[in-house]
């Protein structure tokens, strides 16, 4: 198979990466030309991750929910609520951070369980259950905060969002490379990550060949890896010369790897896809579909709680409005990432790229000073275009 045919039959996957690269390139040029600012400055890249981490984290969970054939509209409110719980426990009750974090995750899990129970075991449409949850937990947030902002958080809690991985090499490497500021840990981590990406890619190719599958053409493989690794190292370098790897990015990277592994290599992950693809067939194959749907919602709740704490830590206070409308960004990211609306398909990596596309657009448009009105219109059109592209590709 020629490179061209191969790209044609895998248009969706490559299209995503190409779209992200194109959007980044577009903003780099336009931002430079119009207001003479470096879009890819270390500071802005750091900001980009800090601003969008919560969307990516929740999109990981939302993918599972959507693959299972459901939807969760309540996550924005759960973000607000768990942020409020964190504030009340930390600021008002004086709990230590190491107790607050697990407590909030448990609260998120319980919320997910409370909603998942009705969806999974009572077959109540998830749209209804989580719409109710959206109202209930927004109201609960207002009640818990008494309509006020609560803050500020102690430094240790703030570091959840604004902290950085310390440089274990100290100043030695800076002297070595003759630079003022260089976070060696950050650089080391991304280089190792890039090597792992290439290694896993090569292993996958060998495996495909062993299965008698048409492997990715060598040229395409190396170009794709060059882009991905180049981007990784570039971003890592930029972060390293600023303040290092944000804690959030590490959390994000670990979660992404864990969920990618779960969805592709673990029995339960596989079963969620089967259940979303054909629930009755899955059930007749001995899969406990109810339990899996329940798990997807619990998982979503836990991730929403994590996002809630990150958002609260970033704002350094809990506000009754926190998280409002987040569910829409997250759901949009999952669909831009190529998940099927009817369930049964979608990939973690696609979702991460989808969320990054949304994030880069948010960030770029804000830098350009484009009004929130235009921003919403553009984001809406991008979502629509991505899904139309999917449907068109499928019918072709």
């Amino acid at each position, binding site marked *: 198979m020629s490179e061209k045919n191969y790209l044609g039959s895998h248009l969706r996957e490559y299209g995503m990466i190409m779209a992200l690269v194109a959007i980044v390139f577009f903003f780099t040029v336009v931002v430079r030309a119009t207001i003479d600012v470096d879009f890819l400055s270390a500071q802005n890249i750091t900001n980009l991750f800090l601003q969008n981490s919560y969307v990516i984290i929740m999109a990981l969970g939302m993918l599972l929910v959507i693959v299972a054939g459901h939807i969760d509209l309540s996550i924005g409110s759960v973000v607000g609520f768990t942020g409020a719980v964190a504030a009340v426990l930390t600021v008002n009750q004086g709990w230590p951070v190491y107790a607050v974090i697990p407590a909030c995750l448990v609260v998120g899990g319980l919320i997910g369980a409370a909603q998942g129970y009705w969806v999974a075991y009572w077959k109540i449409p998830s749209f209804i259950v989580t719409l109710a949850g959206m109202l209930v937990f927004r109201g609960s947030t207002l009640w818990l905060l008494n309509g006020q902002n609560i803050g500020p958080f102690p430094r240790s809690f703030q570091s959840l969002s604004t902290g950085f991985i310390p440089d274990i090499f100290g100043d030695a490497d800076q002297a070595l490379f003759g630079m003022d500021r260089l976070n060696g840990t950050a650089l080391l981590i991304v280089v190792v990550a890039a090597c792992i990406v290439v290694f896993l890619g090569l292993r996958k190719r060998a495996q495909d060949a062993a*299965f008698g599958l048409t492997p990715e053409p060598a040229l395409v493989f190396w170009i794709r890896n060059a882009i991905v690794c180049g981007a990784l190292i570039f971003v890592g370098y930029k972060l390293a010369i600023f303040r290092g790897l944000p804690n959030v990015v590490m959390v994000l990277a670990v979660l992404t790897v864990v969920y990618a592994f779960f969805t592709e290599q673990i029995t339960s992950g*596989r079963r969620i896809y089967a259940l979303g693809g054909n629930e009755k067939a*899955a059930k007749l194959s*001995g*899969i406990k579909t109810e339990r899996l749907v329940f798990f997807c919602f619990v998982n979503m709740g836990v991730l929403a709680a994590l996002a809630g704490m990150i958002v609260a830590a970033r704002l350094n206070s809990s506000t009754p409005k926190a998280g409002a409308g987040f569910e829409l960004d997250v759901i949009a990211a999952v669909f831009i990432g190529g998940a099927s609306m009817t369930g049964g398909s979608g990939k973690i990596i696609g979702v991460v790229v989808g969320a990054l596309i949304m994030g880069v657009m948010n960030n770029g448009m804000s830098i350009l000073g484009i009004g929130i009105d235009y921003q919403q219109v553009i984001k809406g059109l991008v979502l629509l275009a991505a899904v139309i592209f999917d449907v068109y590709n499928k019918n072709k």
Partner: protein
Amino acid sequence: MTTLLEMRGISKLFPGVRALDQVNLSVEAGEIHAICGENGAGKSTLMKVLSGVYPHGSYEGDIVYDGGTLAMKSITDSESKGIIIIHQELALVPLLSIAENLFLGNEVAKGGVINWPLAFQKTRDLLQKVGLNEAPTTIVGKLGVGKQQLIEIAKALAKDVRLLILDEPTAALQENDSQKLLDLMLELKAQGVTQIIISHKLNEIGRVADRITIIRDGTTVSTLNRADISEDRIIRDMVGRDMAHRYPDRTPNPGEVLLEVKNWNVFHPDQKDRQMIRDAAFTVRKGEIVGIAGLMGAGRTELAMSLFGRSYGRGVSGEITMGGKPVDTSTVTKAVAAGLAYVTEDRKALGLILEEPISRNISLANLAGIAMRGVLNQRREAQVAEDYRRAMNIRTPNVQQKVVNLSGGNQQKVVLSKWLFTDPQVLILDEPTRGIDVGAKFEIYNIMNQLAADGRGIVMISSEMPELLGMCDRIYVMNEGRIVGELSRAEASQERIMAMIMNSTGKAA
């Protein structure tokens, strides 16, 4: 009497199948004409041609109706001629009222505004005609199936019906509802409505029909007058054909009893007091192919699915033993662990994840078989799928192909592979050759024989009697939720099976 309808030389081709071949049907004005035939004989196809579901041009032959030739493009055309069909599955909207249903698409309205008083008045008149004492505002979903059937007839009357076609109208009805319906048919006949009834139930046909046309393998076999109607004659005409297919040779070698089911009772999942399976009992030996014969709605699938993890029905009770030991099959997982497998009759809706590749479909029921502590080994998964692709001769470039792209026969092989990978002792195959071509059928038969030779027990549910006769060592006959007879290979014949079904119909305790 004048002839109202004459269908001459009707032929209808589907890709690869000649569903109707030169069928002739002549219906006199004012008579009740019955059409009989086995499942798949072509009765429903013929009625779809007549009602315009298959438009003019998609079939060969002429329909002469009321002196003129019909060339209908759609159901609307046939309805405007007064030809109205009531399908086996009722076409009522359960959440709307009787009046709304009766005039659906045909509203009593002027300029789009519904005249409710007039609509209600007309509804009352129609309900009176069909002998139904309900308010026009009653929600249809709250009525029983018998009453809904009457509403379907009232709906036909609302459209000035001249030729009413009823497709197995009593299949879902209780005895006294059936009687009411048959009475109504006779009353409509007295009012001059010509009717065609499709039915398997010979006692009903004997009661209402003036003439009967028997169809077999897509052709008209005979048309009998009332005086000539006899059960023997009808059964002979319905089944009297040569073995159309060939079956691979096999020397049966049954061993000890593998699966034994006793006192199996199942109730309808929604209607709590409707018993679907009554005191069913059967056995399967090692290396034996056991058939379950019966007409549609006899409860064969319900029996199989209730055995397999209670996937059908409620209030399931009874005993199952495997190799003499009682086993628990109350969930699919437990049933699989006990050594059962069920290959569904509806492979697209219940058997396969169409958008997933062959390899993932094959591993689905036994993911533990390709995993270590919950981590999937995709290399092993592909190897397993590749092995089955070779063994079953699944025609595909590779096992990563989505099953939606496969033909029916190859899809069926994927479903069989899925269940074989669970290493079952007993396989229940529900209509294993439905919708697949002759060549693939032969391959499936060969696979079945091989499985039996390996010492597995096989239960084969099929609506095609020649297939059961050609493949099975023993045949159980089911009717109305009960096993009404058992025939050895030597005893079994289509006539005997049909007779067992006919003789037991309506005689349930």
